[in-house]
Every structure is written in C-alpha cells, then in structure tokens.
C-alpha cells in the first residue's frame, strides 16, 4: 500500500542521489516496485543489480505500456522509478496522470544527450484514492 508519507519520502530521496548514470539508482530507495531503463543511454545495460524487476526499452514506451503498466496501473500501488529520455518521460507522465498517478520526483542527469534528448531520473507514484487505497 502506498501512503502519502511514502510519496514524500521518494520525492526527497532522489535528488540526494548523484546525477550521473551509476549514482542515479545506485541506492534505489526501498519501495520501488520496478525500474525502467532507457537503453538509448549508455549504462542502461550494465545497471542490473537492482532488487526489483528492471524493464528496458529504447524510447518507445509501447511494450512497457501494453506488457506491464496498463494492467498494473489499474490496481492499487506500484511505484515506478526510471531513467529515461524526456520524450519517454512525457508519455509515461501523461499515461500516469490519467491513472491517478504522478511524477513525484524528476531530475535531469549529467548524461550525454541522445538525439538531443535529455535524460531524467524520476519516480512515478500513485496518489488517487482509487489506486492508493
């Protein structure tokens, strides 16, 4: 179950982590249910020691949505962390908002842009009673 305190905790923890790739989720906060990594950014492939499911994708959010999130985000809970390009974050944020979820933390990373796209580290957590209860 996700509480308001959890959301605040994740929001606070992330900015304290580094802004490089390895620092980004080196100490993934407890309570993330899954991690999304955008393989367009170097480093996404070798960051594999997370204690949670890691979903990799290359910019197109479709498989992530149809394969995982569409169903999971209908149910209560599920806190998602990610390191992705701003294009993918935009899509995920839009999908999240319409499912009672919000980006509770976002931070631009010091990674080289890919196709001009800035990488972000972020956390999306449920906030609407229908998915937090």
């Amino acid at each position, binding site marked *: 179950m996700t509480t308001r305190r959890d959301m605040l905790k994740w929001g606070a923890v992330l900015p304290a982590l580094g802004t490089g790739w390895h620092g980004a989720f080196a100490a993934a906060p407890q309570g993330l249910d899954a991690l999304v990594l955008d393989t367009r950014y170097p480093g996404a492939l070798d960051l594999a020691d997370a204690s949670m499911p890691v979903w990799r994708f290359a910019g197109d*959010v479709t498989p992530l949505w149809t394969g995982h999130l569409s169903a999971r985000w209908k149910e209560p809970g599920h806190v998602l962390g990610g390191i992705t390009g701003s*294009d993918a974050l935009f899509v995920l944020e839009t999908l999240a908002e319409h499912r009672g979820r919000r980006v509770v933390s976002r931070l631009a990373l010091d990674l080289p842009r890919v196709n001009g796209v800035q990488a972000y580290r972020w956390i999306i957590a449920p906030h609407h009673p229908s998915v937090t209860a």
Partner: protein
Amino acid sequence: MTIPSGMTEATFADGLAAMRDVVGAEWVFDQPADLNTYRDFYSVFWGEPEERLASAAAAPANVEQVQALVRIANERRIPIYPISTGRNLGYGGSAPVLSGSVVLDLKRMDRVLEVNEDNCSCLVEPGVSFFDMYRHLRESGSKLMMSVPDPGWGSLVGNALDSGGGYTVAGYRGHWEAVCGIEAVMPDGELLRTGMGALPGSETWQQYRLGIGPCLDGLFRQSSLGVVTKMGFWLYPMPESMLSASVSVMRFEDLEELVRIANELEYGNVFNGMPGFSSPVLARENPIVMSMVPEPEVMNAMVAETGLPAWSFASNFYGPERVVREQWAYMQSRFAHIPGVRFAETGFVRLPLTPEDMERIHKPRFGIPSLEIFSVGSRGYGDFNPSDGHIWFSAVIPRSGQGIIAANRVMRAECERLGLDLFMFVPSVTCWTRSFVLFAAVPVYKDATRNRELRDKVREVIATCASHGWGEYRCPPAFMDNVMDAYSFGEHKLRRVNEAIKDALDPNGVLSAGRYGVWPRHLREGRGA
C-alpha cells in the same frame, strides 16, 4: 481556482457539491495538482491569462451519472466540457475551449459493450482506448481489425468525434466515416439514440446508420450539443495479407496523371489501403518535409542530377494474396504509358503478423495501436521532442496534382514570409478518399512572446489558405473562431445555423461552449472572452 465567469462562488461550490454526491468525492477534482491533467500541454497560450483552463473535473462511471451531472450543470448554468480520453494533443489536449468549464472526464466508462463478428461492428463507451479495444479483439480471438491513429492512447469515441484519421482501409480510416449509431446525453439530461438505436428492440443499430428522417449523427461531430456515451463502429475483417507498392515518375509534368489515375483506381476499389503521394527529390533532406516545388525545368534537372523520382505514389492493398497481386499487376498496367515510370513492390506481409514483422512494420497500418511516434527519432516524427509540443495545421485541398503543387507553394511561401517553422509538412495526406489534407506540424513554445507571434502567423496562414478556398478540417481551440469564420458562404450561414441549433438544444449554453466557433447566445458577442 478559475471559476466560470459570471458565476458566484457559492453557486459553483453548490454545483461541485452536487456533483460529488453523484460520482463520489474522489471523482471530482478541483485542486491545482489534479487539474494539471486537464491542461493542454501543447497550448499556444501556455502560461498566459488566455490559457484555457478547467475549473474542475468530474469523472462519472455510467450513463446515469452523466445525465445527473449534465442536469446539475444545466440547472446552475455551469459550463461543462466532455472528453473521452483527453489525448487530443496538437488539437487542444484535454483542456476545455472555454476557461472555467468543468471537464466531464469519461475515462471510467471504458466498457466494450459488443463486438459483432458477423456484422463486423462494435459498440463502445467513450473511455475505451485504442489499446483497450485492440486487447479486447485479440484476447477474444476476433477476426476483425480496427483503424487507429498514430498515438494508440486516444479513444475510438473522442478521436472520431474530432474527425480523426488512421492508416488502413478506405471507409474505415476516416474514423467518423466508420461510425454507426450514437447515444448521447443531451443538454437537458435526456438520452438520444441516433439511427436504428431510436427504435426499441432494433437489432440493427450498428448495421444501418440513417434510421429515419434527418441523420442526426452529424450533430455530434466537432460539436457542442451532447455528451456521447456510446458509439458504434464498423470494423474491417482481418485481411489475409497486405501488399505495399509504389509507382514513381521522373518528370514534374507527370504528377497530374499520377494523381488522376490513382484516384480512379481508388474510387473503383482497385486498391483499398491508404495511398501516399510524395516527392522523393524534394524530400531528400527530410522525408517528412516537402520543400518548395520549383519550376518544372528546375525540378526535372534535380531529378536528372540525383536520379530520384520527381513524384511517387505509394499504395497499399489489403486482401487475399491472389487478389492483391492481381490488383497490383493491373495498377502497373494503368501507369505503364508514362515515360520512365518505375514500379516497386515495397512490402508484402501475411496476417497474422509474426514477431519479426512486428519489428519492421508501421503498426497503425495494421490497426495496431502504438506510442512509437512519441519516441524521438522514430518513423514519422523526426527529431522533434514531443515534450516541447506542436499544433497541427490541417487544411482540406483539392485531390489533384495541381492541388499538391499549389498547396505546397502557397504554404511554403507563407512560412518563409512569416518566418513560421514547420517540422513536418506533407501537402497530400489521404485519410479521406476524396480530398487531400495539407498537414503541417507547427512547433509551439513554453514562451509567451514566441507563442503570441506564432498565433498571429497561424491566423495569417488560415486567412491565406481560405483565400485559396482551403479550409481546415480540424484545429486547436485557439483558432476555432478563425477557422469557422473562413467558412463564410451566405454571410456565415453555416455558423448561424449551428448557432440556431445550439440555442434550441442547449438554451443555457452549458455544453462545450465555443467548440469550433459555435458559442452559446450569452457568450456570442465576445466569443467567450
């Protein structure tokens, strides 16, 4: 909080309280963080006082709740603005046209009510997304295929109501053309069913669109007259295969003949998939931007120099392999007389698609929803970052070679004169079979000064297009009045009739005020200002 203009806080608060009683407190939103969902992220008014903002939103779960909410709004004259999935990016997002409106967010009404395999049709609620429908069809083992727009996160209902388009078969890819049967809550809260749905016990609601008397489906297209709660669609029987091919010509002067024969073949059902007309030589720097069409000699010299075709017509054939191969052979025979014509089969796939096919195809051409277009660098989107935003400019132009050339030159010259950026420009999109749509994607900014300039420029382009007889078929709210103004025949009789209908059906003017330039009587003078 933005409350509807001319309304007391007490009346508004009373209205929201009544809405909470109907849908439950958690389904009425009036906090800024919640209302963020109902901002148009691609608004050309971003951060300005004119930005169209919702005062609140309410998300009903069923038709009865929609009726109750509409009655509450009508009694108190609270403006409301229904959306289905609210993903109308580039044409207004999920924001209302009139600031202060309460958005009726129908996303919770997401049931696929019926799929009729034999009649190839379905009946859905407004919150059913293209993704939902696709999953429903595949999981139920359906033999049907739907048509989807590029982004799969929208809804069959919302997309069709704004006259959206896809990439599949004629009669289906113009999504409004595939609608058969509508149920709508009218501004007085009563329920209307169009076509055969008006006849109790009828089994033909999704089979015969017209019913009796004037066909009222049109009342709900791009309109402000009802909250659509159910909609029927015709679906295409899954074909055995799809063949893609191209016919390319090497001279400027062959375009007219290319389009003329292609039209005849499409209208005669020799091919059924969405055709594409392009100029490889003029799009060699950027495949989604056609540069200015030069004089014939110049263009022919460019062709000679590069070896690239002057014009290309891409066609798609859906059907049994034997049939599509014959159709393609016949098509080639019809163009064979054009000197230097080149034919190419560019793709052939059998359905159902294999995982390898899925990797290489453009999914919407097979009715498969996707979000790929939002990934920078993907097919069709170039390097434009979706988080920056854009609006669509989409004008209906004649379906002829001359139509393409004139639209290209006028639009290119206007953009150059005005310094208007485009990151996509295709003058000949064919969602509909009988006309072209000149499509351009115009970047928008999170900067008021740049957006102000942008708005002035777009208004000039609208006026210039109108002076050539080209009107937009769809547009963002910021330009709805300008676009409707251009349809001025008979001293704006079209708008005046729409206003008369609006006054008759929605005398309190509560529903979707201002949509496509039709304002209720009390806001008509200032057009919502």
